[in-house]
Structures are given as C-alpha cells and as structure tokens.
C-alpha cells in the first residue's frame, strides 16, 4: 500500500513538473498561437471584416495558450535534442527566455484590457503581439535544415 501511494504521488508530481512529451506539447502550443495570430491577421489585412466579438474570442484563446506555457514543464533539461528548433539560449539564458515569452503574454493582456473596438485599434495591438513572436524567435529558436 505504501509503495502504491508512493508510486501515485510520484506520478502526480511528475505530471505537474514535466510533460510526457515536451517537444510535442510545446510544438502544439506554438502551432495554436500561429493559427490564432492568423485569425487576427486576416482582419488586419482586410481579408475578413473586423468583428470585435471574434477578436475578443481570439485574444482570450491566446491568453489561455500563454497560460499553458509552463517553461519548466515544456523545456526541461535535456529536451534540447531531437526534432526541435529550440536554441541552446533557452537553457543558457533562462531569464531572457522567460522575459521574451512574457512579452507575448503582456501584449495579449494589454489587448484584452483595452479590447480593440475598430480595425485601427486592432492593427495597433496586433503589431505589438506580432513583434513579440519575432523578438523571441530572434534569439531562442534556431532554424535547422
């Protein structure tokens, strides 16, 4: 019984501290971010009419996505190899990585706090959110062959 309890608690701990497949999980989160960004971009580019309610839903989804971005669980030590484009800087400069990720979170938070009421407002918020993607990918992602 004690062994079982121990096993369960270890499993539970493992569940919070690390994900079973961090590479797949972090890729899925990034993919979703890209999709959400694309949804906003269609309005920014004028391919779809501005829709305040839909913008709000997308921003909420971005916020949820950012909330799931648990760096410790998604980028554990040793997850720098394999099918990944994560740069060594993630582990060499963890504070810088955290700050870069926070830029996205802050940009989304600011957009939600002052929800865009028209296209021009959306363009301004979208610019800040979009810049946060590049700011992190500049130093923390390596493009591989």
């Amino acid at each position: 019984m004690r062994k079982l309890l121990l096993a369960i608690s270890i499993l539970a701990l493992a569940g919070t501290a690390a994900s079973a497949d961090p590479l797949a999980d972090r890729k899925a989160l990034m993919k979703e971010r890209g999709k959400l960004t694309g949804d906003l971009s269609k309005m920014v580019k004028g391919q779809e009419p501005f829709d305040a309610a839909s913008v709000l839903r997308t921003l909420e989804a971005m916020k949820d996505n950012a909330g799931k971005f648990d760096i410790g669980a998604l980028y554990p030590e040793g997850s720098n190899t394999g099918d990944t484009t994560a740069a060594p800087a993630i582990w060499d400069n963890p504070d810088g990585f955290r700050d870069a990720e926070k830029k996205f979170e802050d940009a989304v938070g600011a957009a939600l706090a002052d929800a865009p009421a028209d296209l021009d407002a959306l363009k301004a918020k979208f610019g800040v959110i979009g810049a946060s993607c590049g700011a992190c990918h500049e130093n923390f992602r390596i493009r591989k062959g």
Partner: protein
Amino acid sequence: MSRVGKVGALFGVMIAAGAAAGWFLSAPHRPDHRIMTAAEPGNAERGLRIFHAGGCASCHAARGAEGEARFQLAGGVELRTPFGTFVAPNISQDASDGIGNWTLDDFAAAMLKGVSPDGRHYYPAFPYASYARMKPQDIADLFAFMQTLPPVAGQTAGHDLAFPFNIRRGIGLWKLLYMSDMPVVEIADASDKVLAGRYLVEGPGHCGECHTPRDFAGGPDTGRWLAGAVAAEGDGVVPNITSGEGGIADWSEADIAGYLETGFTPDFDSVGGSMVEVQKNMAELTSEDREAIAAYLKAIPAHPNGYPARQP
C-alpha cells in the same frame, strides 16, 4: 654556380616575382572619383530608403535597438564566424570615432570598393561585395542621409581573426576573385519590377551574403545563388529563398511581400534569427519595393537547399 644553386636562385626569383605580383594585385583601389561627381548632390530623404534597404542599423546600431536608437550608429555588434569575430565599427557622424570627417569620395570608396579613407581593405563582413552593385546616386543620397544622423562617441574593439584571415592585404586577392559590380542573375525579358527587385536584393539589400552558400575562401557560390546556407553564426541554417526543393516555391509574390512587411510566413510562423532585424528594415520600405523583391525572388533560377540535410 652549382646546378643546385642555379635552381635555388631561380626558385627564389619565382617566389619573389609571385610575391611581387600578389602584392601588386592585392593593392586597394578607390573608385574613379568622376563617378561620384557625375551624381546629383545627395538627397537625404531618398537616402533614408537606401539606409533601410541596406540594413545599416542591423549591424551598426546596438543589438535590439528600437525607434530612434536605430539611428545611433556607434557600432559594436559582434559577428562570430568561423574566420573569427568581426566587430561592426562606429559609422556615426562623430569626427574622430565615426565617419564625421569623411568626404563623399571616402564613403564611395568604402561602399563600392571596400577601401578605407587611409587606403586599407575592409573585411567583406562589411557587405561591400554586394554594395559594389549600387548606383552612385544611391551612394550620394545615403551619404547625405547619414550626415543628418547624430555623432556618437566611442571606438569599437578591433576584429579578432585567426591566421591567415588577419592579414588584410590578402583581402585584395579575395576581391579579385569575388567582387563585381555586375548583376548576379541574368533574367531574359525581365520586367522593370523584376529588375528593381534584382537591384534591391543583389545590391543594397545584400540578401546573398547570408542566403547564398560560401566556398572555402568565404566567397559566395553564385551557382547556388540564394539557395540557403549554413549560418555564418551559430549552428543553424539560413533558408533557401529560391523556388527549388526546400525553398519558397509555394509562396506567392504577395506572401513574400507580406512576410517582409509583417514578419509572418503564409502559415503564420514568425520571422526568426537575424532575419528579425532585416525584416524590421524591410517593413520601412514601400510596398512597391517589397513587391519588386518578391517578383525578383520568383524569377530567379530554382536551386535545392544550399545546406546539408538535417541530421536525425
């Protein structure tokens, strides 16, 4: 003289002749100053466009600089390459630490020939091998614009290079091999738009400096022009921007122009690596310029990736 002595003497003469020829061939040359006097007086407003197209701020402003700080050209950005570490110099208007005392001819010699006012070769980390294709008028306009920028005091550290790359005179031979003011890609029946894009990409934009693989001596392999390359810094790759396998065949011209403007790929991945800085500059150009670049990229020969396949 013995036979051995005669052969030795002959050999000595040959080495001396070779060295003399090498010394002669490697001499730094300034451009004929008449090409600049033929240009109109520089126009700073037009020069701003060239400043952005040329990506000057990416290396000569502080890393990560935003807004007005991108016009503070104190240098200092390091480029860590297999040849050693290059340090971008101060090109602000400071009279002693920057280029505040330069004449237009000095500036043209640097941009078009890679030669300093005191007659030394610059290292081609400064992409004059691309800038050599620029129009004298654009050089004059850029110079006029740079003269409107603030002086910033401060000398940068020197380059830190390994032998034999630390011998500047050798660059003269490199220039003989790789420098040309002629277009890289000949395109039959090219439209004005494609030609405008070719000028921006091959000249001021110096896209080939990173997107084209280099040979053992650091010269661009123009047979694989823009096919992508192993990154000069770090352990990543620079993507293939031709329409060959691994490249951007499935991007439309609007996709390319949109990427340069917003930093997003057609499937909403974002710009990354050193392209982040480049894209910031491209976003400052007109849509007409970005569309011209896109048209050129769709018109050039397709090549498979210029870098090795990813190791599992």
